[in-house]
């Protein structure tokens, strides 16, 4: 029951984040959507680890690596964004 519920949550989050990534006007909003998409995909990965016969630790390790890579992506995108829009008036 728990798995079914959280699978539904992850699916809805993926869909919401995908729609936002493609339709949001502001680039920072797309970045936020990307972060939510990453969390939802991590959720799906951890859910597959709970299938049968105990918990599979490999997806957990993958997700740990993924969280750190996601924050690296966020930092690079923010630095790019600041370089473009930081001090000057936007066009």
């Amino acid at each position, binding site marked *: *029951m*728990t*798995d*079914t519920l*959280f*699978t*539904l*949550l*992850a*699916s809805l*989050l*993926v*869909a*919401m*984040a995908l729609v936002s990534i493609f339709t949001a006007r*502001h680039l*920072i*909003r797309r970045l*936020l*959507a990307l*972060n*939510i998409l990453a*969390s939802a995909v*991590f*959720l*799906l990965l*951890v*859910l*597959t*680890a709970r*299938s*049968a*016969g*105990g918990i*599979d*630790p*490999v997806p*957990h*390790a*993958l997700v*740990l*690596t993924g*969280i*750190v*890579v996601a*924050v*690296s*992506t*966020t*930092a690079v995108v*923010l*630095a*790019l*964004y*600041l*370089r473009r*829009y*930081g*001090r000057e*008036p936007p066009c």
Partner: protein
Amino acid sequence: MLAIDVLLALAALATAGQCLLLPGLFRAVANLMAFGLVMALIWVRLDAPDVALAEAAIGAGITGALLLTAVGQLPASQRRLHPEHYRVPRWFITMAIIVVLVGGLLWVAMLELLNTGLANAGLAKEVAAALPESGAEHAVTAILLNIRGVDTLLEIAVMLGAVAVIWSLQPAIPPPALGGNYPGLTTLARWLHPLFLLTFCYFLWQGTHAPGGAFPAGAVLGAGGVLLLLTGSIGWMYRYGYNYLLRWLLAAGLLLFLVTALAGLLMTGSLYGLPPTFAGYFIIAIEVAAALSIALMLMTFYLFGRPGR
């Protein structure tokens, strides 16, 4: 327990929806941080305590600090998410239909996968069989640092690449030096820092036999370091004279990882094939190096550019 699950799922949906739909950049970022905290609770609920620790420190802490600082640097015209009067877009209904369709499709597919495809798959047995030889008693730590050490090596390389990209873009944003205006913040950072260091050591020590390890430890130390950077307590990172030291420190984790990989190649004939007798010592060395370099790189992200000019 089902009630808690439903509450957690609703809270995650609500914070994510507010983050994506409501006007106001600051509000969206605050909602993303709340979403990170809810996700940390969900990880605990799904028996993934390692992930919960990392998510609480990185997803809710460092990502939020990065986003808030970046938003603070933007000119006022860029901070608004929507021009003038915000209205719900006309194609909101279309969007909702797409969300329900895509989400439902994914849900059905995932349930099918969980019920049939993965019933006998998974690597839990293989990991349990390899655990005694890996040098760590906790499975996630053993996978990250020994069994799949290559992944962690590449992950640290990705972080180093991200630092290189950020440094190539612009000079560092000067520290906000909030200490003068908000003296409470400086005091809090000073009082809490010993505790951050203690938590760091505790996670490292605990990582070999229980949830914890290099990633949560590095994330906690990085979050504490960002707090110190906020108050302007770490001046040396910005100075020119310390630039080379900073570079060497940043590269140290990756270099130590490569050295252990090559040592494994020499001693057992395969990359990362650590000999079982020494594996415990190797794991501790790699763990400390990986945690320190993760913490330092998370702090370097916060500079948004190249220091020392």
